[in-house]
């Protein structure tokens, strides 16, 4: 039976709506995150009272004000709008907010375009979550791992220098001194002399081992001959030692003046990249391209090996605590760069790294 609803029926519906409204209001007042509506000029139409907990502004202080009042950097807002203009929706967009007493906070925004009843876009509706603590922890972890890498590097250099300038040096001195000693005094039995020449060979071996160890720990000649020359030599030796053909193509960096920090990290990235190829890829060829693309530097390491399943490998790495790819990622972070890995079974692996470079 159709027709007008009865009075009782209307009353019941109103009570239902009232209850919904109270519920919504309670939720609105008590939500942890911050709910916010703005029009397209950036004026705040509505914002949840929770904002006060984070930024110190009351809801009433903000309504009618420009949203930029709580942005530390207006560029963030521009970027958010730009991202919204694509699909009409943004997830986990991070920005830096500024509180009433000028503290900086980090927020993560989920936003979408707001429409009126006629389906016309009228503004932006967003939900903001405070991620300041997470950001701080991330930063802290990053600082620590940077320090770790740096300490590691310093220690390597120190050990390398000691091995080369002290241990290998002393062994060489010892060799000369013994040589003179046995040579001078001809009263030694021929057997003794023969024994000496055997011992001398052992000394030679030790010197060569110590020297290689030292060169392995710290690239020789980086300061004297520059990064490109040192890398070219490294690649040649890698090829000689492993039988894997290495093509090293540097371009656009001859005139670049890189600080030692970038040099050593680039060297390590290539060293680690090539070592990964040697250990895992079963490749016959690697191409290393290093290109200056102002204001960035691009590094590519591409092999023709067996490839691998990237996700499985990452899990495996987490389990085994192996450092290969992970330490490369850390280093790239250290250089504030980006890194991607592409791998395809039976085709090989491509590593792409890009980081900013300022002279």
């Amino acid at each position, binding site marked *: 039976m159709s027709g007008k609803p009865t009075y009782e029926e209307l009353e019941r519906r109103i009570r239902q709506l009232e209850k919904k409204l109270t519920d919504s209001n309670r939720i609105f007042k008590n939500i942890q995150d911050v709910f916010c509506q703005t029009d397209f000029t950036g004026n705040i139409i509505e914002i949840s009272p929770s904002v006060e907990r984070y930024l110190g502004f009351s809801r009433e202080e903000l309504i009618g004000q420009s949203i930029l009042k709580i942005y530390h950097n207006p560029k963030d807002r521009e970027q958010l709008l730009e991202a919204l203009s694509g699909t009409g929706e943004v997830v986990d967009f991070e920005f830096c907010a500024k509180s009433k007493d000028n503290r900086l906070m980090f927020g993560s925004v989920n936003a979408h375009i707001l429409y009126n009843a006629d389906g016309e876009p009228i503004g932006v509706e967003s939900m903001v979550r405070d991620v300041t603590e997470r950001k701080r922890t991330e930063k802290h972890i990053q600082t620590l791992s940077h320090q770790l890498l740096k300490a590691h590097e310093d220690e390597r250099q120190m050990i390398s220098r000691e091995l080369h300038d002290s241990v290998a040096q002393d062994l060489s*001195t010892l060799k*000369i001194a013994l040589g003179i000693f046995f040579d001078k005094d001809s009263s030694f039995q021929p057997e003794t002399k023969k024994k000496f020449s055997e011992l001398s060979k052992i000394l030679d071996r030790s010197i060569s081992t110590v020297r290689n160890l030292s060169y392995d720990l710290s690239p020789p000649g980086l300061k004297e001959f520059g990064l490109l020359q040192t890398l070219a030599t490294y690649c040649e030796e890698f090829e000689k030692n492993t039988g894997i053909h290495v093509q090293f193509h540097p*371009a*656009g960096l001859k005139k670049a003046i890189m600080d030692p920090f970038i040099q050593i990290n680039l060297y390590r990235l290539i060293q680690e990249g090539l070592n990964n190829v040697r250990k895992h890829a079963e490749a016959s060829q690697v191409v290393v391209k290093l290109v200056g693309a102002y204001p960035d530097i*691009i*590094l590519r390491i591409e092999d023709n090996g067996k490839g691998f399943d990237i996700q499985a490998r990452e899990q495996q790495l987490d389990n085994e605590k192996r450092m290969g790819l992970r330490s490369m990622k850390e280093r790239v972070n250290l250089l504030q760069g980006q890194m991607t890995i592409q791998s395809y079974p039976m085709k090989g692996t491509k590593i792409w790294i890009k980081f900013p470079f300022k002279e």
Partner: protein
Amino acid sequence: MNQKKRIVIIDDHPLFREGLKSIIAKETRYEVVGEAGTGRQGLQKTKELKPDLALVDVSLPDQSGIELIREILESSPQTLVLIVSMHSKIDYIVKAFQTGAMGYIVKESAADMLLKGMDQVIQGNYFMDTSVSHQVVKKLVGMPARETAADDVGYDTLTPREQEVVILLAEGLTIKQIADRLYISPKTAENHRSNIMHKLGLHSTIEVVRYAAKLGLIDIDLWKD
């Protein structure tokens, strides 16, 4: 009249210098007239004594021995330089000879090779330790191939701004888009483009893309999952 040849030894390890001196002492035709433990002292000694031969270590505490070779030859041109070094890397050897050294010996070979090397150098010949000559020759033999591989010399002549433009061109941006991206006028962007084409000897956007892919600026051979 055979005068003794006068030698200066520059090495920061006193015991090693002693070792060298003892080897040299066996030969009456040589005489060690001075020694030094730093580059600065070494330069002073050679300036002062004008020796026939200087035995120089390439890693000294105060300066690179490579620089020292240059300074010695400037201040005492008649002095011949023989390097006695812990380093066996080819880069050091090549650089030492390029800078004017006449001989190179790694330290552990000194007992066997020092006198032979000194004799050769004093006669005006080059001398290279047999334990390192192998890798040097190998490098020389390999060189022509490496040279021809370096066909991207043009790229090194680009300015930073031009490097910025190449990658954008290769990524398929129009002149207008490049201008917007770099906050320059379309006219300036067009100028950059024509300078780049000229410097790299390219004639079309397709060629730019191919060139950029070859250098590694972009990847056109993306694998599909």
